[in-house]
């Protein structure tokens, strides 16, 4: 029986189950010594591959992040304009698309196999997905760094990049779609083979919501990217700029909802692992995921609030009534997740006062601190700024200012990315079966990253309130005929952003170094539970 993992079975997979169980073939599953959950070895291989590639993208995007942040900080103003725009494009794609998507495909494989006690539907599809995603990501990165795609992450037409840039994005999108199809295939065989009883766990339900939105998202991606690709090769004469923006945000916004769904699922998962919490009310939590599926698409209108190509009533309908229903879903999760932790902690006897349960929570466990900080940053900064910016009238003040990156670095970075880091503190011991070194440093890492992102996010937001634009190389307008017009207040805020960015980068690098050291050189975990955090 061929083993699914590269490392010989005798060395590592010591608790492999040699009889066929459930729908697993003989020798292709194991029981986790720590959690008691079943692990499909094929899924394990691809979770590992996806996690490694995700971290590589995070490193690439992180280095670019530091450089562009040090450029936006006027006191440093590091890069020249060409490299500022080039690396901003590079940063956006490696972070928002590659890091996040590699992790999400891994999460989908995990949720559908381990939590449903099923094997992965197709190893061939998993390979196809992985190879396409890697090839696409490499193509995009090479094209950007070669100076052939300085079009920013949004690549708004009529800005034109080299055709390989669009081709790379299409490859990543199709690869992801194949991964999502593999997830649905696994749901199907798990149901068919009755590998679980009753309805699926909430984490799987959330992952399914994410996958459904991902399909709609990726279809928008194909709809907009294929014509643009043809246009970049002069096969199509023209792509309408207004049409491009409208359809592109069907991709750009909804992919953020995939992230939110995945992040919320990770919250529920980490809450269970770190505090023993369980969802309080299944119907409410599941209903909230359904709200995401139904209303998210419409909310993409908030990216077009100053777009002259669409009408006022369209904007207002989509961004108020429809968007609030999606926001409602986030508020439900934002309430039920901490409530489930509170319930679990109180049951263990931590009943003192209003917040005794929170004080007694496992703050030294990086899986917990990353998850809870992610929840707080996402809710308090991301949520509040997001709903405010999504109001049509207010958006006119904020459009294209640094308030926008200030907002999304508190959602997709302080929220999603931090939650994924917390997840890694369990994925490495449980799926890679390796211990982390420097555990004291690992305990501090989520705080470091969170503090950095919060400072940076606030600095960006308030600099934006002073009118400082986003995607702008030189707000001093050196050599221009007119006065720059940004006072000391804006400069203080940009300084705050710069300091925050440096701290966040140190947090990010710490995470990567710890994780790489653990994955490749960490102490092996065999026939025993992981050392608890």
């Amino acid at each position, binding site marked *: 029986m061929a083993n699914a993992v590269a490392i010989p079975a005798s060395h590592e997979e010591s608790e492999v189950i040699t009889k066929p169980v459930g729908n697993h073939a003989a020798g292709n599953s194991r029981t986790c010594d720590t959690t008691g959950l079943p692990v499909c070895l094929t899924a394990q291989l691809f979770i590992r591959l996806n996690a490694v590639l995700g971290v590589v993208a995070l490193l690439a995007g992180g280095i670019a992040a530091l450089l562009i942040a040090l450029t936006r900080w006027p006191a440093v103003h590091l890069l020249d304009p060409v490299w500022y725009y080039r690396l901003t494009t590079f940063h956006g794609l490696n972070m928002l698309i590659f890091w996040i998507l590699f992790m999400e495909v891994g999460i989908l494989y995990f949720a559908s196999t381990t939590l449903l006690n099923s094997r992965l539907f197709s190893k061939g599809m998993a390979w196809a997905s992985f190879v396409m995603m890697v090839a696409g990501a490499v193509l995009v990165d090479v094209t950007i760094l070669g100076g052939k795609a300085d079009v920013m992450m949004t690549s708004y037409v009529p800005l034109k990049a080299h055709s390989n840039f669009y081709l790379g994005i299409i490859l990543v999108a199709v690869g992801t779609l194949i991964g999502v199809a593999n997830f649905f295939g696994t749901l199907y065989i798990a149901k068919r083979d009755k590998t679980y009883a009753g309805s699926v766990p909430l984490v799987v339900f959330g992952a399914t919501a994410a996958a459904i939105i991902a399909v709609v998202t990726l279809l928008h991606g194909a709809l907009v990217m294929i014509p643009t690709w043809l246009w970049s090769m002069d096969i199509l004469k023209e792509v309408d700029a207004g049409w491009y923006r409208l359809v592109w945000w069907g991709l750009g916004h909804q992919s953020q909802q995939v992230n939110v769904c995945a992040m919320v699922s990770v919250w529920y998962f980490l809450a269970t692992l770190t505090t023993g919490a369980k969802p309080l009310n299944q119907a409410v939590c599941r209903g909230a995921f359904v709200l995401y599926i139904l209303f998210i698409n419409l909310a993409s209108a908030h990216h077009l609030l100053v777009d002259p190509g669409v009408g006022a009533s369209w904007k207002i309908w989509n961004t108020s009534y429809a968007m609030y229903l999606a926001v409602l879903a986030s508020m439900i999760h934002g309430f039920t997740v901490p409530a489930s932790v509170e319930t679990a902690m*109180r049951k263990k006897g931590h009943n003192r006062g209003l917040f005794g349960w929170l004080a007694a929570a496992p703050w030294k466990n990086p899986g917990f601190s990353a998850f809870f900080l992610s929840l707080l940053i996402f809710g308090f900064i991301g949520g509040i700024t997001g709903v405010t910016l999504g109001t049509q009238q207010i958006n006119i003040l904020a459009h294209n200012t640094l308030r926008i990156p200030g907002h999304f670095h508190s959602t997709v970075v302080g929220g999603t990315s931090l939650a994924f880091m917390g997840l890694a503190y369990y994925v490495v011991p449980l799926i890679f079966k390796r211990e982390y070194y420097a555990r004291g440093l690992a305990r501090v890492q989520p705080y470091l990253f969170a503090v950095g992102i919060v400072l940076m996010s606030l600095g960006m937001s308030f600099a934006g309130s002073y009118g400082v634009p986003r995607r702008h190389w030189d707000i001093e307008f050196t050599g221009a005929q007119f006065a720059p017009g940004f006072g000391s207040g804006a400069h203080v805020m940009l300084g705050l952003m710069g300091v925050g960015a440096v701290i966040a980068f140190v947090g990010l690098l710490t995470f990567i170094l710890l994780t790489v050291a653990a994955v490749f050189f960490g102490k092996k975990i065999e026939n025993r539970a992981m050392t608890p955090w």
Partner: protein
Amino acid sequence: MPENEEKAAEVFAHEHEEEEHKTPGTVVLTLALLISFAVYYFANWKALADVWHVR
């Protein structure tokens, strides 16, 4: 022994059985969120009114 992690399989198997719960701390956190939102939202409308005069 990691006590919480150990229970994971069990929690996932039994998560559908709901129990009584009281969560006053979370309610306070949620109220803090709503108040922060109201303050920020109001400040933004105020800023808008300062920039765009309606006569």
